[in-house]
């Protein structure tokens, strides 16, 4: 479960959210500029809310009133950003193992075969295709044994054809690992396929009206 109850200001933009996310996969849906990425950044500790609190099952990540603000490296949040940001000076294997924690139950082999990147482990990042990069980034986040997984339009840079081929991998992550996922996307089909719950953001607020697809 993830509790989001905060206000965050960024220039002239204000994001205000009061939500309790209890689903396996929550889709953050809405037009660009609605504040979807900002929500993920706040959970990961990359942006600091002006007030309020953020908590997950394992504890409080941020609480302005109590003076709690865990730095990103102590939050145990797996974040696959839109640009994936694989380390360009490392091999795929070094990337995937970068965040491995002591006592990590997941083995590299298991994660690599689930995402079918076994054959890529000794490649360098510049040699990977867009879809391969996405899978490596997901594997890297999984290996850090996260309490929560954040995906920011992980498939935005991938064409529709490949996107459909990556969905099964994400479904496996969802079904085989019991980690709550917050998934930012523009794509209604993706929401339909992967999410159990939808939070619709509009201009920094959660939209009240019930969610409907407007194709």
């Amino acid at each position, binding site marked *: 479960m993830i509790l989001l109850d905060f206000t965050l200001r960024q220039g002239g933009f204000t994001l205000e959210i009061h939500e309790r996310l209890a689903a396996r996969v929550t889709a953050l849906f809405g037009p660009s500029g609605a504040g979807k990425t900002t929500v993920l950044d706040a959970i*990961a*500790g*990359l942006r600091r809310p002006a007030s309020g609190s953020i908590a997950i099952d394992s504890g409080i990540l941020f609480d302005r009133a109590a003076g709690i603000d865990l*730095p*990103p*490296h*102590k*939050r*145990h*949040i*797996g*974040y696959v*950003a839109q*640009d994936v*940001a694989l*380390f*360009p*000076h490392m091999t795929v294997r070094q990337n995937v193992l*970068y*965040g491995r*924690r002591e006592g990590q139950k997941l083995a590299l082999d298991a994660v690599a075969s689930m995402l079918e990147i076994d054959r890529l482990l000794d490649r360098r990042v*510049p040699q990977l295709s867009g879809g391969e990069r996405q899978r490596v980034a997901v594997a*890297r*986040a999984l290996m*850090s044994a996260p309490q929560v997984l954040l995906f920011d339009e992980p498939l935005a840079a991938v064409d529709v054809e490949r996107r459909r081929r990556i969905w099964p991998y994400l479904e496996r992550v969802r079904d085989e690992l019991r980690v709550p996922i917050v998934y930012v996307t523009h794509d209604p089909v993706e929401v339909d396929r992967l999410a159990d719950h939808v939070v619709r953001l509009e201009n920094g607020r959660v939209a009240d009206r019930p969610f409907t697809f407007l194709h």
Partner: protein
Amino acid sequence: MDVWQITWFTLATAALATALMVPPGLLIAWALARKRFRGRLLLDTIVSLPLVMPPVATGLLLLTLFAPLGPIGRVLARAGVQLVFTWKAVVLAMTVMGLPLFVRTVRAGFEQVDHRFEAAAATLGAAPWRVFLTVTLPLARPAVIGGAVLGFARAIGEFGATIMIAGSIPGATRTLAVAIYSLSEIGRTGEAAGLVLISAAIAFAALWWSNRLVWTAGENA
């Protein structure tokens, strides 16, 4: 005059000075590139000062500070360390004069490293020092090498501050640059010309090597 002694002495002191520039230089460059703190502008200005001040003025300032009765020299003297007019003074002058070039080059390199990689490393559980050592530093490698070579080259060529704080004592503090000056002063221009050739060869080799490293790094990126 022992040409090889002077050449060896210059290379060794410059190498040591470069090694001494690196730890504080990396720290200052990183702080200037990545941190917002009080006194940032002041630090930036002070570090760059030797680049703009006449080297002789920097030398006189160092001499005042490090002379046996100066504020720092007194402390050193009590510890039994004599600095001015020894090889240690040569290294000090070279370090102070080379540091601004190292810091400016490395800082620009750090600023070019995309924040997203550092943010990704942090969310993967890396503490700030680990992010620096495994992400920021390797990605800025060409700038770090380039900065070290510039600092080394500046150290080899150091003259003004060196002559003030270390003098020109044959066999003890005389570097290539100082020897070229001292020898031409007394009309031994032939020998000075020989040292000029050696200086040029060293400079050429250092730049060639650094350019090659930077190019190779660029091709692998």
